[in-house]
């Protein structure tokens, strides 16, 4: 083995026997699709690569794609979200499978939500347990009987997908409220295009830059009745929010206003924004504020950032909210486990993408199994986002196992468990060792569902767990991201 200083970045790379490696075969050969980028990195000297790496970081820093380091707020220290220069590549055939799968899920979920807020046939037919829905804190009674424009609830959804050691794709979860991260997809691509000019020319890669236009078209397609040219806005909690960069980025790229609650008011059941020329009517709101906070008249009364009366305007059909309030019960991790049945029930189709086998702790048999096998399972609270509250069995001490068992027993409805899925690994540049090493990755896809079309962004966010052996890829847990190239057929 050559020393790290003299050899290439890949000399000490060992393809995993345990996990699916996206880049290398077991014999160490590079998989089709990755040849150009691999050769490019190999041909780059360390100095040139590190220069590229620094330039990409500077580009992110200057664009303000950063987060504040809270331990040092006094001095305003900021860091960029870690970004890897080695893109994840998905060929056309695999992408077609993924795309058909997420469209199928989106359509089924949409029909499911409509049914739950109307006739509840799926509950009456006992395909999904009624208690599961009614006990969900994200089920909004106020939405019962209401019909949103085009009967669409989830205009924007994010589907988290992994590739298991069997080489198959599995859906880990659906994000149906305010899925974030799409701005990183676009900015990762911008950074890579600047740095890897020669490689882009050699691959036929789908563009991701039209996402904001597609999003705007989606929003416009669900305008209220009797509106010709809708005024659309992005509704943000404000600049202190961790996803504010994305809110501003999307508003800028769509060429529409970025509003906060204080900018909006409801008058005679219509929503207006306060401008320097007086009130201007708003027709479609892409809201990045959670249900609980959008209207203190209906939801949390202590919300200062909501807009009193906005739900009245919505339910009168005078404004469209995207996503619709009350979609959260459908991305509950317990409801997720019924997705194969939900797809069959509404679409009469077999699920295209796999679901992970899931144990419901509220079911007696499942509960017993989970209690006996905590050390072999991933235990997840059903209503948390951002990777919080997740425990991975084989990383727990005996005391920690006991603590998890206690938590589950105290609130069985709150927890589900799944086998420890072997997230695939991808060659990732590790600054500390100055070489590429295998790291676990997942993939978040973004689906837009409008009145007349369903569009899946041909790319997505590949999140990478930078810590060796870590399976949690969320940025809040120290994860980074990769550009995702979907190859044209």
């Amino acid at each position, binding site marked *: 083995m050559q020393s790290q200083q003299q050899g290439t970045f890949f000399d000490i790379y060992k393809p995993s026997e345990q996990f699916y490696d996206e880049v290398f075969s077991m014999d160490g050969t590079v998989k089709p699709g990755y040849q150009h980028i691999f050769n490019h990195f190999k041909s780059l000297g360390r100095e040139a690569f590190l220069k590229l790496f620094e330039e990409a970081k500077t580009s992110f820093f*200057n664009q303000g794609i950063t987060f504040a380091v809270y331990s040092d707020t006094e001095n305003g220290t900021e860091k960029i979200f870690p970004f890897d220069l080695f893109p994840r590549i998905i060929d056309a055939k695999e992408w077609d499978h993924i795309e058909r799968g997420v469209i199928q899920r989106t359509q089924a979920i949409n029909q499911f939500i409509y049914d739950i807020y109307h006739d509840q046939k799926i509950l009456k037919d006992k395909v999904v347990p009624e208690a599961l829905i009614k006990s969900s804190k994200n089920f909004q009674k106020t939405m019962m009987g209401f019909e949103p424009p085009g009967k669409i609830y989830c205009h924007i959804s994010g589907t988290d997908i992994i590739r298991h050691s069997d080489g198959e794709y599995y859906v880990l979860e659906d994000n149906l409220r305010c899925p974030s991260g799409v701005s990183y997809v676009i900015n990762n691509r911008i950074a890579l295009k600047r740095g890897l000019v020669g490689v882009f020319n050699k691959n036929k890669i789908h563009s991701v830059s039209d996402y904001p236009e597609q999003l705007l078209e989606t929003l416009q397609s669900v305008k209220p009745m009797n509106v010709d040219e809708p005024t659309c806005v992005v509704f943000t909690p404000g600049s202190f929010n961790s996803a504010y960069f994305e809110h501003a980025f999307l508003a800028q790229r769509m060429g529409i206003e970025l509003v906060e609650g*204080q900018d909006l008011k409801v008058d005679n059941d219509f929503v207006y924004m306060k401008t320097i020329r007086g009130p201007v009517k708003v027709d479609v709101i892409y809201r990045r*504020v959670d249900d*609980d906070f959008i209207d203190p008249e209906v939801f949390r009364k*202590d919300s200062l950032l909501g807009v009193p009366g906005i739900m009245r305007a919505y339910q009168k059909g005078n404004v469209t909210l995207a996503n619709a309030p009350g979609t959260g019960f459908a991305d509950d991790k317990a409801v997720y486990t019924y997705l194969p049945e939900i797809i069959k029930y509404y679409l009469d189709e077999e699920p295209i993408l796999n679901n992970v086998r899931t144990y419901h702790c509220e079911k007696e048999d499942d509960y017993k199994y989970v209690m006996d096998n905590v050390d072999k399972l991933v235990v997840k609270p059903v209503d948390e986002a*951002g990777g919080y509250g997740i425990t991975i069995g084989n990383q727990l001490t005996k005391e920690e196992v006991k603590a998890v068992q206690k938590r589950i027993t105290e609130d069985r409805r709150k927890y589900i468990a799944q086998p420890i899925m072997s997230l695939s690994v991808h060659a990732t540049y590790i600054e500390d060792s100055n070489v590429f090493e295998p790291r676990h990755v997942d993939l978040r896809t973004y689906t837009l569902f409008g009145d007349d079309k369903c569009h899946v962004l041909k790319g997505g966010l590949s999140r990478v767990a930078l810590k060796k052996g870590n399976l949690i890829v969320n940025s809040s847990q120290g994860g980074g991201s990769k550009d995702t190239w979907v190859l044209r057929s």
Partner: protein
Amino acid sequence: MLSRVANSLYWAGRYVERCDHTSSFINIHYFASLDTPNKMAQEDEFVLESLLFIAGDDYQGKLTEEEVLHHIGFDRKNPMSIINTATQARINAHGTRHLISTECWEAFNKFYHLVNSYDPKVFITTGLYDLTTKLNGACSIIREKIIRTLMHDEVWALLMIGIHLERAFQIIRLLNTKLYDVGKIQAQNPGLNDLTYEWATLLRCAEVYDMSKKYYRKIPNQSQAIEFLILNTKNPKSLISNIEKLHSYIQRLSDKSTLVPGSIEFIIGKFHSYLTYLTIEEIENDTTAFVLNAFEELNKIGAAFEKDYLFLETVEPTVDESVSQ
């Protein structure tokens, strides 16, 4: 445009201009004092008081070079410090980034990081020239991006209103500081009339010294310096030029067909007319009174602008109201 966003644009413009002027002033004033022909003006205490007069708030600390420079440069408790004005400029630009160009936002962001990543210890020892020169460059880039990468519409007009109103304030503040300095020198040196160096420094601080020499074909004296800084319509930094520009930007925003007494359009038009027919002799009859009146008029303009265009009710968030998925 949203009133809240208009407010942010206006203040982004004001803060970047304020930071630029503070940087220019301490740079030029400090280095000019090192070899001023006037002995008193070379004294540490005199120089530091003068720096504080324009660039600090109500300073109560020790009058040592290190402490004063820290207060002006990096004291987060001083709202006028360079670090705070740069931070405020960026915070306000941040709230408008969906409206301003990517290039313009990146210029604001780089400008902020230039200050934020600068070692305060280096600044107070050897870095004064380095940082303030770089900051002047960064502010110029921001203004250039505002002019070249934005549509010349409301967004642009609001940024420019912030810049020119702040610049007008700073010009009057500069003159006030110099009058204060000159007053102190003359009090200690009765009969001393040749203060050309001090007035030249004033013009240098406003970055108009070379222009003024060309205009008068000699080094300007006190009257000429004040006239050039206040009344010269060809000097882009003069008070009258800034008021003229403010007037034109306000007119771009305005949708009023008639002038309403008390409105921003009315107040600014009136002040512009006053300056147009003012002579240097009238100013010099009582320069201090003129300065005070100018401050009052500029404050009226600022208040009327905020009343007519930026009326806001703000709420402070108590909780993060969106869970990132």
